[in-house]
């Protein structure tokens, strides 16, 4: 229960974007986060800083103040937040159906463990067969 209470709230879209940067790049300074975000859309440095500070208060990110430039890192793994957002009914209704529109190198259906094992075996045999 206490763990439940200490869970940070669901991130907003802006916060989610910053979290994505942190997950992708690992712990970063505000400047690094800003650099990554500004590459996609013009954003002020101070805006990023403010959002990060708010997120730190909410407990979505951790701040390392040991160095002169504070280093922020996501407090939860990406999976956790994805689960949080999966609770979003809208997301659930949309997320699944979106797949029919997406084109990807992989099919939308995941491979089972058995399939993966078969796959690996096949590749290994192929490697052996063609030295």
């Amino acid at each position, binding site marked *: 229960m206490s763990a439940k209470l200490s869970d940070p709230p669901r991130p907003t879209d802006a916060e989610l974007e910053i979290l994505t940067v942190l*997950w992708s790049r690992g712990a970063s300074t505000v400047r690094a986060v800003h650099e990554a975000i500004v590459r*996609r859309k013009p954003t002020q440095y101070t805006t990023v800083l403010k959002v990060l500070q708010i997120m730190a208060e909410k407990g979505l990110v951790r701040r390392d103040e040991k160095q002169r430039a504070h280093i922020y890192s996501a407090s939860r*793994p*990406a999976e956790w937040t994805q689960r949080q957002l999966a609770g979003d009914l809208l997301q659930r209704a949309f997320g699944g*159906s979106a797949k029919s529109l997406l*084109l*990807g190198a992989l099919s939308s259906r995941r491979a089972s463990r058995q399939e993966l094992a078969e*796959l690996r075996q096949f*590749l290994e045999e*192929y490697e052996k067969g063609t030295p």
Partner: protein
Amino acid sequence: MNALALWVHTPAAQAVGWALVHFLWEGAALAAVLAATLFLLRPSSARARYAAACLTLFAMPVAFAITLLVLLPGHNIEAVNLVRLPNAPRLSAVPLFQPAPAPRTFRDLLPWLAPCWFAGVAFFYARGLAAWFAARRLRQRGICAPPPAWQGRLAQLGARMRLSRPVRLLESCFTDAPVLVGYLRPVILMPLGCLANLPAGQIECILIHELAHIRRHDYLVNLLQGFVEGLLFYHPAVWWASRMAREERENCCDDAVVELTGDARVYAATLAALEHRRALAFEAAVAVTGGSLMKRIRRLLTQPQPAQPSAAPAFAAGLLLVAFTAALAAWPARPPARLPIPSVALEARLLESQTLEPQSSPLTGALQASPIPRQQPAAFLSFLNFFAQTQAPPAQRKGGDGTAQQALTTPYRKWLNEDVVYIITDEERATFKSLQTDEEREQFIEQFWLRRDPTPDTVENEFREEHYRRIAYANEHFASLVPGWKTDRGRIYITYGPPDEIEDHSSGGSYQRPAAEGGGTTSTFPFQQWRYRFIEGVGTNVIVEFVDPAMTGEYHMTMDPSEKDALLNVPNAGLTILEQLGITDKSQRFSNPDGTHTAAPLGGQPNSAAPARGGKLFVSAQDPRVSFVAGDAAAAGTGLSVVVVQFGSSRDSFHVFGEVTLPQRRVVHAFEGTSENSVNVSGQQVLTEFVSLPAGSYRLAVAVKDMTTGETKNSEIAFQVN
């Protein structure tokens, strides 16, 4: 209900009902043709198979439409049902809800097919619309820009595949596999951590696959496919043909990748790795065998696919059978078993839609990936090397630019090779050169400055303004035959700004040498010494000397203090103090181990480089003999050097001050001590000092003072650590 009941009995509804029934056999027949075609086409390329599948799929709605048109009133005798119309009004729904007369004929039920069909179509189209919104959301939420190098690489690949539309690459936390979204403004979404963890070659394979989708307009075709599926949702043949098209589409893109990279094995490994990552992130709940991926990889690696006992002919025969049965059933107008419901395929699809979107995506390595280090010279040595390597920057850099440079039009080339040549990082340079359109370049330049703006909140970019001011200053003050920004002084000025202090000897002439250069008077070429109190990444109190030995006005940077000496090559002129006293000879200046022609310093290192020392260092004829032993014990990367100073006398105590320096006289290690109680076997006094040094060449300078007589002696030796 009234209205519906009324409508149901119009000829149009009848026609729709009949068209739906007739499509049962039409669709089956088309699917049978497709199955046969695919069977015959088996060994040929995926492209033909894809074309066949698409053609069949899009022939289906056409067949349906034609049937409908033929059956519509005015074309057909089915309009006889009109006779019911007069009865319908005022009767309300009551008779309809009464238990039907026992043998309800097919004709009675037929009109109700139409509203059911409409409802189904509405459902599937609503779902399609939701999917469209979801896809749009996917490219707006939980995303971040990838490292710029990848965006650049993508642009390169796009150009190689002759794509006209710009494609964006983004990392998303909501996808578990790389996907393509959008037709007009396509975006490739990579799962988090994919770019950081997969080998570059594999990522390129993925990118090529997605770019192939774009080139083939697959996104649009896929949308149309969804349209057909929704329209004729009740017929399994439609779903089957659509699935065939999807499968073959992936095969087509697989072929494109192999064609471009030439290595099927890497690509197969990529697909397997991707699937594996995904499985790690999310354990598949349902085990399904015979997955499409296995088939694809098999196809990739064993190109002429073994004619395996396929289910296709049996399937085709089965479909034909179904088609005939349906046709027979429709014709004698017997009731169908029930309203045709999309069977297996639809159920599978519904199941699929329930698997939730936000899946855990692999993150493991992403957290380890560190931000790209900014390149800055770490020490003075690297600072010097940096300059040594790029003495003539524009010329050298142009050489290596190769073909990509051709694409750069003049203003951008000028920007890259003149404006920011000294401050752009290698990474940025590579990215800039990989950009394809002027628009992207403009954007890059804007962001380049924005990144360096100390106050991004203000409109002014102080960094850029200062940078261009420095260039202007350099061009105004340092120009000779060479434009000012290209000169050494220009380069230093632009890179590090105005020095804190300039010692200007631009008229040359008589010059009192400092003790560090041996003292005495000489005549010099024009030269300048710039002093920086602090340069970030280089150090404090950095002195840079520029000399103009050719008197052309083009000063070049030098590390050799003797280069400014105009009398260097004149015998017996411009002697140092030691040379004047006859203690050293001017010719010794030319045997320095570090390549300079500096005279031995008078009294050791310059004060700026060494702490203050007690006692005046004069040399007497009978002083303690000083010898050095520089042994070394190499240990991975750094050698431990033992510096032993031995003295010839055993009488008295000595005070020793020593410095280990780089050949450029930068102090690496300084030590001080007395030799009071350490005597070696031959009775000589010994001072031992342990220094840990990386491999390289060093100089050791030692000053020894006899504490009783006050005699001093200094000496210098070069040694090597291996």
